[in-house]
């Protein structure tokens, strides 16, 4: 199969691209259903307390209204069914500002929205925990995170020749996929179809079934296209279930889409973190201790703590290490997985601290990192399946022109701008997860076509395309002979597009099932071959009209013996206006070692997309809670500033050649998450290099540089 016609590794255009740009790809609420009704959620306007009374008389009388659903008339659900963040209308308790407290269903969206505005709610308010700065010190150990100690970091810090101890703060960040969370729910008897954006198709199926007290086989998830998710569509949230119960109550299909404003307190966010990082080193730059202590918050009734210390566990060689977490409950919606969970925020703290210590040591930050490169995974002693940090740093330094950087800040000045260079590394674990797939081959004359089926999810990142490429190569068919069917729970179960496991898990099972069908064709031919024939050759030579096979793939048994992660090095050049403090990222380069790159075009888009969000984390994005009320003050995209085109300079992505077959058969490591990791630190380090100002609290807004 490794002939000149292979498509893996080639920059193949997205096979779903034309559908998307012509509007023919159906997203959640685009699917045609008969006679839909429209649901609009209404939300609490206090952060803590109880609902005393809901006056829905005017709403019920309003034109077109079919139902008003509140905790008074909602069906009994299983709140432990796996829906994140509660808010399932099961009681009168209010645990955060903007909690779902009811749904209006009407003939049209406009009627439903107007009626929802007519609802009057009386509350009994109680004290809310919403001022993080006042309460973070009350934090306790999370339920699932013990302190992890190697050696004695505290003692090593006390005896350090050189050290830094600093706290790095990151705000609440929101995912804000272009497509808000949206659902069509349609019942046929006891069977429920949910057209819904789901990063984990089978996860959505199970959570909906358990919560609604249904058998999983009676819940059908249809999610062929996803308009971005970034973690917010990994777990499912109350809106999915409210659509289902609304459809049941009005006995019609119901469409329910969250508004952009509702996205702020409906589907999680990245929590606020205070990360104290302490580094000790010898005078010649060998690390002797690394402590990474995170304080954060979770919801009142549920805990979620993003693992900010993960990068610190494996990035650098140090004999003494401490990773700890403290968490305090707050009256805010449950935080959740957000691109590069723990690693993007954690790397900001770690890689800023590394930059600070390098400066204190008067060492080049790349040389400092190279000096502390670990031979094995320091956290567990396992060998790396592959680790290309050194190559990422060296290749990046050369490509970026790192030699132009000055050690001392404020040395490069042009007109009114201070110019600075920054570097930072990042990492994200690589895993294959259990997945199944079916291949169906058909032949008409000499025309062989194949269909691949599995309940995978394409976030918009190119899953359709890489699976078609994988199947095309494994079956020896042109890519236009491959049909990929994913995003449907009726298909064989598969991993989710989460945690950078999608491409690895899906491509491996597709490759396996294609090899399996080839094996079966060989067996069916009853012949022996010197050179293994391909499936398409056999279909024609053996005159087989159709055949199908199924594979159920698991990770390599030996994979656990290795520590497998993607790694990167990020380089930023910033220009800071000396008068106004406005920062522009003029150039950004990410060099990534992430195993085999299936499609350099979609892979590049993944990486630069992560870079843009990382630049947003560093410079512009921030969700602000009013500590008096507990609501998000920044509640639209006019106030939550994702970077605009004009904010982004020249982006470049380089992949280090790597095939990590110790990690999985195809040697893939995953790139979705790692693209954002290390980015914010590279920008912040460049800002220091430009200005001499070390900003430890993101985002780096103009006023912080005055």
């Amino acid at each position, binding site marked *: 199969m490794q002939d000149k016609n292979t498509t893996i590794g080639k920059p193949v255009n997205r096979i779903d691209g034309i559908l998307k740009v012509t509007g023919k790809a159906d997203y959640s609420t685009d699917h045609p259903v008969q006679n839909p009704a429209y649901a609009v959620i209404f939300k609490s306007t206090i952060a803590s307390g109880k609902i005393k009374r809901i006056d829905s008389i005017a709403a019920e009388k309003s034109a077109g209204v079919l139902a008003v659903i509140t905790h008074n008339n909602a069906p009994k659900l299983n709140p432990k069914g796996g829906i994140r963040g509660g808010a399932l209308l099961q009681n009168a308790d209010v645990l955060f500002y903007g909690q779902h407290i009811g749904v209006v269903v009407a003939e049209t969206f406009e009627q439903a929205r107007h009626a929802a505005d007519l609802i009057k709610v009386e509350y009994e308010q109680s004290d809310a925990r919403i001022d993080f700065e006042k309460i973070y010190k009350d934090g306790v150990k999370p339920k699932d995170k013990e302190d992890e100690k190697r050696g004695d970091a505290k003692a090593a810090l006390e005896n350090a020749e050189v050290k830094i101890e600093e706290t790095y703060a990151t705000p609440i960040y929101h995912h804000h996929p272009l497509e808000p969370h949206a659902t069509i729910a349609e019942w046929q008897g006891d069977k429920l179809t949910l057209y819904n954006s789901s990063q984990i198709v089978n996860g959505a199926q199970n959570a909906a079934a358990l919560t609604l007290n249904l058998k999983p086989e009676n819940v059908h998830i249809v999610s062929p296209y996803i308009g971005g998710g970034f973690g917010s569509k990994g777990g499912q949230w109350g809106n999915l279930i409210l659509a289902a119960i609304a459809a049941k109550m009005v006995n019609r299909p119901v469409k329910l889409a969250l508004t952009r404003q509702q996205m702020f307190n409906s589907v999680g966010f990245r929590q606020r973190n205070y990360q104290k990082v302490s580094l000790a080193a010898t005078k010649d730059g060998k690390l002797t201790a690394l402590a990474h202590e995170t304080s954060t918050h979770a919801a009142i009734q549920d805990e979620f703590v993003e693992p900010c210390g993960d990068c610190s566990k494996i990035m650098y060689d140090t004999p003494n290490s401490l990773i700890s977490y403290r968490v305090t409950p707050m009256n805010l919606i449950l935080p959740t997985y957000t691109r590069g969970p723990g690693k993007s925020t954690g790397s900001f703290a770690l890689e800023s601290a590394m930059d600070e210590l390098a400066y204190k040591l008067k060492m080049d930050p790349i040389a400092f990192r190279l000096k502390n490169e670990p031979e094995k995974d320091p956290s567990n002693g396992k060998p790396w399946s592959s680790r290309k940090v050194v190559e990422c740093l060296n290749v990046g330094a050369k490509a970026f022109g790192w030699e132009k950087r000055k050690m001392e800040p404020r040395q490069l000045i042009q007109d009114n701008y201070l110019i600075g260079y920054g570097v930072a590394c990042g990492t994200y674990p690589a895993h294959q997860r259990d997945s199944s797939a079916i291949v169906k081959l058909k032949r008409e004359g000499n025309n062989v076509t194949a269909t691949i089926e599995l309940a995978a999810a394409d976030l918009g990142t190119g899953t359709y395309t890489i699976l078609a490429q994988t199947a095309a190569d494994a079956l020896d068919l042109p890519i236009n002979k491959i049909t990929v069917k994913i995003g449907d729970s009726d298909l064989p179960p598969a991993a989710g597009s989460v945690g950078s496991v999608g491409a690895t898990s899906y491509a491996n099972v597709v490759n396996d099932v294609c090899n399996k069908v080839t094996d079966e064709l060989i067996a069916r031919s009853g012949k022996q071959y010197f050179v293994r024939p391909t499936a398409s050759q056999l279909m024609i030579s053996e005159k087989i009209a159709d055949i199908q096979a199924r594979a159920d793939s698991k990770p390599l048994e030996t994979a656990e013996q290795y520590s497998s992660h993607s790694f990167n090095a990020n380089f930023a050049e910033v220009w800071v206006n000396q008068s*106004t403090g*406005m920062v522009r990222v003029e150039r950004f380069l990410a060099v990534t070692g992430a195993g085999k790159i299936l499609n350099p075009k979609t892979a590049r888009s993944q990486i630069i997309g992560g870079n843009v969000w990382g630049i947003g984390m560093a410079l512009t994005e921030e969700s602000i809670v009013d500590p008096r009320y507990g609501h998000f003050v920044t509640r639209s995209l006019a106030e939550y500033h994702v970077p605009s085109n004009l904010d982004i300079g020249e982006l470049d992505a380089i992949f280090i050649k790597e095939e990590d077959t110790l990690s999985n058969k195809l040697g893939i490591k995953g790139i979705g998450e790692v693209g954002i990791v290390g980015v914010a630190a590279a920008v912040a380090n460049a800002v220091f290099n430009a200005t001499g100002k070390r900003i430890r609290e993101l985002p780096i807004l103009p006023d912080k540089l005055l």
Partner: protein
Amino acid sequence: MKPFKYINAKDAPAAVKLVSENPNARFLAGGTNLLDLMKENVEQPDEVIDITRIALTQIKATSAGVSIGGLGKNTDAANHPMIRQNYPLLTQAILAGASGQIRNMATNGGNLLQRTRCPYFYDVNMPCNKREPGSGCGALEGINRMHAIFGWSETCVAVFPSDMAIALAALDAVVKIQSPGGQEKSIPFADFHRLPGDTPEKDTNLGHGELITAIEIPKNNFAEHSYYLKVRDRASYAFALVSVAAALEMNGNVIKQARLAMGGVAHKPWRALKAEQMLVGKEPTEANFKLAADAEMAEAKPLEHNKFKVELGNRSIVLALQMAFNSDKS
């Protein structure tokens, strides 16, 4: 959003009549702000009078200067050769606002009538004296990084969001109005927008039903030395933290006339008159610019989260004046 009646007005007198007869009627021009406010229930008109088909779109030279149609699009005003050549400050200010798509929809009159983007004004569940007089000011002791440092009152600390209007204030524009009685009147730009005082619900001195037909800008000698500086949290599509419209008329090496207006600092375009006066007769040096900026910013009264605007305003005045002075060289 409250259900409303939509009426397409055939001409200006008809539109003015329709709106003036109903206190809950609103003109609909570009809709880039009104429709957002209606979706959020901040504005709840029961009648919306569409004026987009009325031909008040012309940009034309007059004996006094230039007249810009009230219903012309922001994009057209910014790019008109006469504006680009004679009033580059206005071009720069318009192009610093919003996004290309919004400027293609937004009208010149509508730009002046934008409501504040104060998040407490925009959220009907929050107190706001501007939206609901007597309910209190959410921002005074709330999150007020974006808010006013000049001219605010205990009832309202909101800022006026337009960029275009800051340039118009600096250029001493005049707002031409058609009133319900049929008469036409003019309001000098300095008197058009208001400070909040005890009536923050009133942004301008325009009466209900009055329609902006044109904006007139008198001739000036600022084209060679003018600059609009906008400092913001991202490079595009963000409201100003501070903006400065600066214009100089030189007499040899001495400033004959200076104009300075600031955005993002007050409930109206803030004319920095004190600084302007100090610059007249001076040489265009950084030291003189700094003295003028110091004098103007000494009056600032920042809130809890926007103390930085005093220093930023000071630096921005200096930078904008430098850029204005050097703008003929670029």
